[in-house]
């Protein structure tokens, strides 16, 4: 009789522990589901930007200077090309007009 009572108490304890574990699991599971993926090892030192590897550094000034230089060069080259074509056509016109107006033609 006493053995049966002990077994009952033991079973109740096991049920209580099981219920407690299930309650904890139910509370923790959604939090675990929405948690961020595990990060790498925590940062242990600060690195100045100048010490970054070459491929991770990207200074803005060369890009800015390149953009402005390109605009200037492109426009100057275009103006020079148009001017050169204009001079060539005008020279050709003068030569042709001279040949047309030549006496004896």
């Amino acid at each position, binding site marked *: 009789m006493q053995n049966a009572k002990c077994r009952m108490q033991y079973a109740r304890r096991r049920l209580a522990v099981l219920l407690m574990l299930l309650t904890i699991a139910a509370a923790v599971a959604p939090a675990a589901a929405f948690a961020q993926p595990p990060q790498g090892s925590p940062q242990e030192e600060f690195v100045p930007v100048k010490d970054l590897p070459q491929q991770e550094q*990207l200074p*803005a*000034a060369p*890009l*800015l200077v*390149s*953009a*402005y230089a*390109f*605009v*200037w060069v*492109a*426009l100057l080259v*275009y*103006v020079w090309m*148009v*001017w050169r*074509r*204009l001079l060539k*056509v*005008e020279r*050709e*016109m003068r030569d*042709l*007009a001279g*040949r*047309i107006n030549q006496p004896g*033609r």
Partner: protein
Amino acid sequence: MNRVFPVLAIVAAVLFAAAPFVVAQTPNEATMGVVQKIFYYHVPAAMAMFLAAFVCGIASGMYLFKKNEAADRLAVAAAELAVVFGLIVLVTGPLWARKSWGVWWQWDARITSTLLMWMIFVAYLLVRRFGGAGAEKLSAALAVFGMANVPFVYISVNIWRTIHPTTAVVPKLPGGMKGPFWFCAVSFMLLFGLLLALRARLELRRAELDKLYLQADEE
């Protein structure tokens, strides 16, 4: 034109020479920093490209429907300028994007439609040069399509999802940025007008030269 042109050319040269000093005084943008200053040349170049596309499209329409030879010459000049200013936009944009977006190029609506528009005007010049007989009419039709593309390029940033800044940026420019931006925009517009006049003059002289050759053949 002969009297006004040198004066305006000197004004444009002075404005262009002063522009980098004016831009240097502008404040750095909060998130992009100093690379955002490409904006002061990038956007005015885009404005000049759009204007060139409109001039080319309208002049081509006049040539197609009214057979106006002068309009055709103006269209050729404007198409070449659309290609030059478009090239400036397509080169300065990626230089800005590399720092602020981390990539040189993004196939988004604004950038892709700008590239397509630029290619239409490159096609115009190629057809014009290598198209043979009837190339004038074919290229004029291309120019009308190129012009029709401008509103789509402009509003693309407001309609589709894109990482390119929207059209609201320019009207909302703060005081320290607004003045230098419009200074650069006026410089580009003045330069555009001068280059258009110079290039149209070249076409006129070529037409005169062709007439002289015909005259020489007849005599």
